[in-house]
C-alpha cells in the first residue's frame, strides 16, 4: 500500500486511535505505547477489554505481577471512560496456583465502569460471578458460558437495560431462571443453549412482552427428563429457534409478529408425543419462514393449523415411511407458499405411499421455487409430481452432491423427459 508522506495517523483524534486499538489483541495494543510519545497512554482508554487463552498462556511467571498490575490500572483508574465490552474466554487454568487471577474483582471493576457488554466463558464461572453482576444498570448484553457450573441468581436481580442474554452450557437451580427473565424488562434477545435446569419441577416458563428473539436448544443426552411443559408468552416474538425432544406439553400464546422459526425436534417415547408436537406447531401458525427438522411424521396432519403467512418452508429429515405423502399433506396447510426447500436422503427400507390425488393449492397458485438440497434417485417421483402440478413454478433447483458424472447425466436425462406444467419453469442443476 502506498504510504503517506507524513505521519497522518498520529494526528487522528484519540478516540479514533483507541477504536483502532480495540481491534488488536490487547498485548499488541499495549505495545503501541512505545511507538511515540503520542501513543504512550492511548491503550489505557480502549473501550473493549478482551483477555483470551492465548494471552494468558503467553505470560510467564516473571510477568504475572506486571500483568496483574496492568489489569488493575486498566480497570480501576478513576477517570476512565465507561467501558463498552469486557470479555474473557478460553482461559484455561486461570485459577490455578500459577495464575491465581482475581477474576471476580475484575468483573466488579468492569461493572463499576458502567460496562455495556460482558462476555465470559470460563470453567467454574458460577463460583466467581459477583452478585453485583445481576443488579447492574449499565449492562445491555450478557453472555455467559459456565462450562457446566451453576449460575446463582440473587433474589434482588434487576437488569433494567439488558437487551441480550445468552446462556450456554450453564446450570440453573430452582426458579432462578424465571426470576432472571422476569426481571429483565427490556429483554429482546434470549438464548439458552445446552443449559441444565436442575430440579425443574413442572415447566420452562418464558414470559416477556419485550422479547423479539428466542433460542432454546436442549441437548437430549444431557437432559433426560422430558416430563415438563414449555410455556412461552412472548407476543412480540419475531424469531424462534427450538431444538429438543418433544416434551410433555407446549403452550405458546399467540405470536402475531413471528417472522422466522427454526424447529428441530425428535420424537419422544411418550404416548402423547404427537399431540404435544402438534400444539407446538399450532403456536407457530403465523410464521412467514419456517425451517423444520424432524425424524418422524411427528404431527397429526389432520390437526395442523393453516399457515396463512407461510411463504418459505424448508424441511430436513433423515427420512421415514411415507415421508413424501406426509409432506404433501403439510403443503395443504400452507396455501400461500412460494418457496420450498427439501433435504431428505433415502433411508433404506422406507416404504413409499402413493401421493395424494388432491393437489395442494400452493402448488397450483403460488409455489415459484423448489430446491432439492441433496438429490437422490428416489426423489425423482416427487420431482415429477411437482413439475406436473406446480402451475406457476419458475425455478427448480437440484443440488447433486456426491454423485458420479455418469449418475448425474442419467438423472439429468430423466429430468429432461419429465412434463412441466409451468411454461416458465427453469431447471437448475448444481
Amino acid at each position, binding site marked *: *500500500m*502506498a*504510504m*503517506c*508522506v*507524513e*505521519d*497522518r*495517523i*498520529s494526528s*487522528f*483524534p484519540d478516540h*479514533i486511535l483507541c*477504536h*483502532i*486499538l*480495540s*481491534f*488488536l*489483541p*490487547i*498485548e*499488541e495494543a*499495549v*505495545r*503501541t*505505547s*512505545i*511507538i*511515540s*510519545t503520542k501513543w*504512550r497512554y492511548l491503550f489505557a482508554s480502549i473501550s473493549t477489554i478482551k483477555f483470551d*487463552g*492465548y494471552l494468558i*498462556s*503467553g*505470560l*510467564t511467571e*516473571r*510477568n*504475572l505481577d*506486571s*500483568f496483574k498490575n*496492568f489489569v488493575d490500572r486498566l480497570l480501576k483508574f478513576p477517570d476512565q471512560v465507561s467501558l463498552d465490552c469486557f470479555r474473557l474466554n*478460553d482461559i*484455561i*487454568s486461570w485459577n*490455578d496456583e500459577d495464575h491465581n487471577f482475581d477474576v471476580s474483582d475484575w468483573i466488579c471493576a468492569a461493572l463499576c465502569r458502567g460496562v455495556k457488554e460482558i462476555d465470559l466463558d470460563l470453567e467454574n464461572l458460577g463460583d466467581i460471578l459477583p452478585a453485583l453482576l445481576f443488579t447492574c444498570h449499565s449492562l445491555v448484553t450478557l453472555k455467559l458460558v459456565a462450562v457446566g457450573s451453576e449460575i446463582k441468581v440473587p433474589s434482588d436481580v434487576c437488569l433494567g437495560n439488558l437487551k441480550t442474554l445468552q446462556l450456554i452450557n450453564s446450570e440453573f437451580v430452582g426458579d432462578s431462571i424465571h426470576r432472571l427473565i422476569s426481571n429483565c424488562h427490556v429483554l429482546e434477545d434470549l438464548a439458552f443453549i445446552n443449559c441444565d435446569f436442575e430440579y425443574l419441577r413442572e415447566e420452562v416458563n418464558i414470559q416477556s412482552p419485550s422479547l423479539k428473539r428466542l433460542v432454546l436448544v436442549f441437548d437430549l443426552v444431557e437432559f433426560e427428563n422430558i416430563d415438563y411443559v414449555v410455556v412461552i408468552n412472548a407476543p412480540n416474538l419475531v424469531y424462534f429457534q427450538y431444538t429438543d425432544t418433544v416434551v410433555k406439553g407446549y403452550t405458546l400464546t399467540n405470536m402475531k409478529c413471528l417472522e422466522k422459526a427454526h424447529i428441530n425436534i425428535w420424537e419422544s417415547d411418550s404416548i402423547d408425543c404427537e399431540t404435544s408436537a402438534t400444539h407446538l406447531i399450532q403456536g407457530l401458525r403465523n410464521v412467514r419462514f419456517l425451517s423444520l427438522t424432524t425424524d418422524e411424521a411427528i404431527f397429526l396432519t389432520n390437526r395442523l393449523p393453516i399457515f396463512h403467512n407461510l411463504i418459505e418452508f424448508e424441511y430436513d429429515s433423515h427420512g421415514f415411511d411415507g415421508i413424501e405423502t406426509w409432506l404433501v399433506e403439510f403443503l395443504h396447510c400452507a396455501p400461500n407458499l412460494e418457496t420450498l426447500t427439501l433435504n431428505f436422503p433415502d433411508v433404506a427400507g422406507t416404504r413409499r405411499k402413493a401421493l395424494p390425488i388432491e393437489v395442494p393449492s400452493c402448488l397450483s397458485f403460488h409455489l415459484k421455487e423448489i430446491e432439492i438440497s441433496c438429490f437422490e434417485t428416489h426423489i425423482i417421483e416427487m420431482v415429477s409430481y411437482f413439475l406436473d402440478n406446480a402451475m406457476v413454478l419458475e425455478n427448480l433447483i437440484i443440488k447433486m452432491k456426491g454423485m458420479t458424472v455418469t449418475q448425474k447425466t442419467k438423472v439429468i436425462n430423466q429430468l429432461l423427459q419429465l412434463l412441466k406444467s409451468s411454461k416458465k419453469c427453469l431447471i437448475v442443476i448444481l
Partner: protein
Amino acid sequence: MGSTSTKIKLRTSDQKVFEVEKAVAVQSQTIKYIYENGCPDSVIHVHSVSGDILSKILDYCKKHVNSAAGKEDISPEELYEWDANFVKVDQNTLFDLILAANCLKIESLLDLTCQTVANMIKGKRPEEIRTTFNIKNDYTIEAEEAVRRENKWAFDMLGGVGTMVIEELADDTMSKCVTNAKSRVCVIAANQIVMMRSISKLANKKSIDVYKQPQNPTTPRIKESVKQINVGTGFIELFFHFKCKM
C-alpha cells in the same frame, strides 16, 4: 407520495453536489439527524468530506442498503469480500475514509476502516509500525525504557519466552501462527494432529520446543521428543522432532 424514492442533496467541501436516495444517505447518522431536524428540501453541507471520498462512501452505503433490503442478491460472504476490496486503497484514501466515516457517523464503515488499519499494525514490531505509517520515534532512551518497564508483560511476549496454545487450527493457519509467533514454546492441544508438512516448512525458521498438552490440565506439561505417539488416544501424532534456529 414518492416516499420510497425521496432524494437528498449533499454538497461536499469542494462544492460537488450529490443527489442520493434517502435510504442510502441516512446510513450516516449525521445526515439523518440534519435531515430529520432541518428543512428536508435544502441541500445538506458535508463540510469536511471531499467529492471523491463522498462518492466512495455513497458506493459503500448503497451496497449495504441494497444487500440488507434484499434488492441485491448477495450472500454475506460476497458482501464481506466486497468490503475487503473496498478498503484496498492507498493509505491517504483509507485515512480520509476513516475521518469521513467518523464525521458522518457511519458505524459499520468506521469499524471496517479501523479494522483495516489494525490489520496493518498487527503482528508488527514497533519499528515496523513506525515505518508503515511514517511515525517518528520521539522517546528519549530513558523514557523508552520506562515505557517497557511499565508494561513488561506485553513487551516480553514479543520475541521472548512464552507459550502458545494451538487449538483446532487448519494446517496452513497453524503454520502461519507458528511462523508469526514470537514464542519459543508451543503447546499443542490434546486432540490436535500436527501435519508433518507444516512443521517441516517451518523447520528452518524457528526453534520450537514441542510440548504435549496433557488431558488433565493440572498436571505439568511434558516435553516430548517426538516420534510417533499413541495413535488414537487423542494425543498428538508427530513424526519427528524438529529443531532449528530462531
